[in-house]
Structure formats: structure tokens, C-alpha cells
């Protein structure tokens, strides 16, 4: 790299810095600094919405004599966190070769409960039984973290009531439906003293008294009395609080998030490089309707025709010699101008 994208104006720049302030099985709190809000926000967005997990997507109800409606139960089932360990080995259903679903792109869970006693029976996530082949032994199992080992309550049955259903859990991301979100919440905070004035705090008499200080307020210098506003200041320290809903451990959410960004970028670079390579990579199949109107812009197809040197005429219209020099957008020369 002939330049460092992370160089700050005032930096003794060592690149981004991560400091962890709390970490356990359910959450990790860390500070990301020496980077830009753009990247921090990308990471936040990706962790929130684009990490693949598994959730119940189809429910076939065989018997339901409970007081809850079928669709109500189906919705509740969808929201039950399932273990997403080894999700990479599972295919997206839409990308699988099978007709509807199979063991390569789904996990099947059965639920069958009937209340025979006099007490109200609680049907919990624990009662969901994974059946059939799975990618691994834990993928798709309900997450059970409560001390009783029951898992989330799905419904209650009275004497004689019965529920029997089959659930198909599929891979997905939270952008499609939030049931696939790996995190319960992503805390994201910067500038605890509001020095940058990104917030306009509502108050009655005194915002300092009425707004409780952030837990990160001690980490940064409070503004001095009468300190002038710094117009050049940019946010530099970002406080993340990643709390998992269960499917993936909190650290893994961070790593997976970065991985998702990497994959996005890799896909794009691949595409750019590919279309760059072979001469007129995707020109052939599309030519017929394509050259109508003589638009030579499409003609050479490739992304960087000009990168090949001497290939200038490919860009312009009929002019050829001065494709985008003198009269690129001038009248009539190029069909697209």
C-alpha cells in the first residue's frame, strides 16, 4: 500500500485498536479506536443484519388443539434461537439443488406434546426434537440457557389438549427477517460527552442534570468550561456492546461480521478482476440487441477497456480517436450522450 487509509491527522497511527472491557458467554463490550465511523458503522450494520444463522422457517401443523392459533404458534417457533454452530456447512435453501428442502439446506425439528395430567403443561423449546441427518450434531438445536433447562416457552396446554407439528429450520440473514439475527442487540456509541454535537439533547432546565452520563463518560475527557467547538473533530472511539441471542457466541459475532464484509469485498473484487481479464468477457452472448443504436459503450463489454492501453477507441462512439477527449458528451457522436 502506498498510503495508509487509517492515518489520522493527529495520529501516531498504529492502525485500528481494539480494547475489550467486558466479555463473557452472552456479551462482549469493546472499544474500537483509531478508525473511522464509516468502518465502525459497517461493522455494526453487518453484525446486526447480515450474519447467517438458522431459524425455523416452515411449520407443518398436524394437530393443534391448544388455545393458540396455528400461525401464532408458527411465529413463536420462528423466533426461538437455534444453535448456529457450523452454519457455513449448511446451504441456503434457495441455492440448494433439492426441490423444497433437504438435509443439506435445512434441519427438521419435531414437536409433539399432549397434556394428560390435570396441571397446565408448559411446552418449551426443549421439547423441539431435531430429527434426521444434520450437518453436525448441534446445528439447529434449540438454545437453552435458563437454569431449569427448559428453553423459551412456546405454549401451554390444558388437560386433553395436544400439539403436533414439524418445523423446518433454514439458513438466513436478519436482513430478510429479524428471527435470523445472531445478536439480541448491538450497542454502538461514540463521543459520550457529545462534544461533536451529533446529538441535540432535549432538556427542561439543564441537560447535564437530566441526562445520565454514559458508562463511557469516564473514558474520555469531559469538555472544558468555555471550550470552543472543534469543527474538525471526527468521532474516533467507538464503543460496541455485542449481546448474543444464543445462536453464536458474542466473539464469533464480531468475527463473523468481519468475515461477511470480507466476503462481500472478495466477491466484488473477483467480479471486477474477472470482467477485467478476458477480452470482452461477456460481450458475445448479448450482442444482438445490444448494438442497436450503435452504442459502442457496450461494445467492448469489459470494465476497464482503457486499462489495457491503446484501446481507447472502444469507449467512444464513432469518433474512435477522441472517445472521451474532446467531445465525449457532445452532440450526436456517442449514442449515449
Amino acid at each position: 500500500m502506498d498510503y495508509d487509509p487509517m492515518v489520522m491527522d493527529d495520529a501516531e497511527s498504529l492502525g485500528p485498536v481494539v480494547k475489550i472491557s467486558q466479555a463473557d458467554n452472552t456479551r462482549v463490550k469493546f472499544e474500537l479506536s483509531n478508525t473511522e465511523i464509516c468502518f465502525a458503522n459497517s461493522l455494526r450494520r453487518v453484525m446486526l443484519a447480515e450474519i447467517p444463522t438458522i431459524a425455523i422457517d416452515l411449520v407443518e401443523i398436524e394437530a393443534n388443539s391448544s388455545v393458540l392459533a396455528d400461525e401464532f404458534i408458527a411465529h413463536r417457533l420462528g423466533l426461538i434461537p437455534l444453535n448456529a454452530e457450523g452454519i457455513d456447512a449448511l446451504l441456503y435453501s434457495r441455492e440448494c439443488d433439492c426441490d423444497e428442502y433437504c438435509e443439506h439446506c435445512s434441519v427438521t425439528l419435531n414437536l409433539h406434546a399432549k397434556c394428560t395430567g390435570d396441571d397446565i403443561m408448559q411446552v418449551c423449546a426443549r421439547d423441539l426434537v431435531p430429527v434426521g441427518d444434520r450437518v453436525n450434531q448441534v446445528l439447529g438445536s434449540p438454545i437453552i440457557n435458563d437454569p431449569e433447562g427448559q428453553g423459551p416457552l412456546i405454549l401451554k396446554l390444558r388437560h386433553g389438549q395436544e400439539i403436533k407439528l414439524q418445523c423446518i429450520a433454514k439458513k438466513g440473514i436478519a436482513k430478510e427477517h429479524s428471527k435470523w439475527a445472531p445478536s439480541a442487540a448491538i450497542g454502538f456509541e461514540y463521543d459520550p460527552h457529545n462534544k461533536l454535537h451529533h446529538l441535540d439533547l432535549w432538556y427542561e432546565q439543564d441537560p447535564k442534570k437530566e441526562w445520565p452520563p454514559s458508562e463511557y463518560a469516564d473514558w474520555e475527557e469531559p469538555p472544558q468550561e468555555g471550550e470552543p467547538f472543534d469543527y474538525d473533530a471526527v468521532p474516533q472511539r467507538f464503543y460496541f456492546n455485542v449481546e448474543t441471542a444464543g445462536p453464536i457466541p458474542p466473539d464469533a459475532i464480531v468475527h463473523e461480521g468481519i468475515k461477511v464484509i470480507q466476503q462481500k469485498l472478495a466477491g466484488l473484487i473477483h467480479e471486477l478482476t474477472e470482467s477485467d481479464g478476458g477480452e470482452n468477457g461477456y460481450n458475445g452472448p448479448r450482442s444482438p440487441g445490444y448494438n442497436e443504436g450503435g452504442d459502442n459503450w457496450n461494445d467492448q463489454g469489459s470494465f476497464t477497456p482503457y486499462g489495457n492501453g491503446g484501446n481507447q477507441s472502444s469507449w467512444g462512439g464513432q469518433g474512435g480517436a477522441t472517445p472521451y477527449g474532446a467531445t465525449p458528451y457532445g452532440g450526436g457522436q456517442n449514442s449515449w450522450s
Partner: protein
Amino acid sequence: MGKVTKFGDDGEEVTMKETPTSHQPEAQDDVSMADAGEEGEEGEEEYEGEEEGTKVRLLPGSTPTAASFEFLEENHTLGNALRYVIMKNPDVEFCAYAIPHPSEAKMNVRIQTYEGTNAVDALRKGLRDIQDLCDVVSDKFLEARKDFTEKKAAASA
């Protein structure tokens, strides 16, 4: 990929789109322009959709040093970070991104570079730079997490 493929398969839907390149900086009201854009979209997607699904294309009106790219299925997540990183490149004179319409899953990036370099290289470099950045953050996180666990273990021991 799935979505792009669907789009390409469904030829009708593509041709029905009346405003293919509404976000054109250089677009002038010219029928042939609109036609070219429309066909471009259809042709490319049809072909690429078969295998990869094209996520990025160069918009008409682009020149080597001043190009607009259209990304499909991308949003602020990539757009803002990309814009920032590309702007850090000293070869780049100008870079901006826009999401022309919230209900279209499209993101446009405009890159203008100085003489002698080209915009596609700047884009590619931008993408690589974010990758590097991701690597660093990932490593730093792993490191910090390890330190934290060790410190905690040491404190409790």
C-alpha cells in the same frame, strides 16, 4: 445471487423498467440513451446471472478517470466505508456514493481520479484496502480477547 438470477430470468420485468439509469450524472434526455441503458442492464444481467450474478457495473457516461458504478444488493454498509477508503487514496480527486431510491436495492459510487490513473483501479484498491482493514481489526480483536481472558484468569487465580 439468488435474487439477481431471478431478475435475469424474468426478462419481462427487466424490460418493463422504464427508468434504468435515473441516477445518471451525464444523462441527457435522449431516447437512445434510455434505450442503451435499458438494454445494457438486461443483457448484462441475463448473461452474468447464469453463473455469478453481476453485482457491479459501469454506468454509461463514464470515462477512465471519472466513472460511476452501480452496485446491486449493496447499501450503506459497504457504500460509506468504500467511499471513505477510496477518498483516502491520493490518486482520487472525488468519490461519493448514493442510494438513488430506498426501495431499489442499488448503490451508486462515483469516482473521479487525477490524470494518469483510472477509476476502476481506484475502486479495486478501495475494496482491497477495506479487506486489509478488516484483517487488522479481526486480528486485533482476537488479540484483545485473548489478553482479556488471560488477565481475567490471572486475576481470579
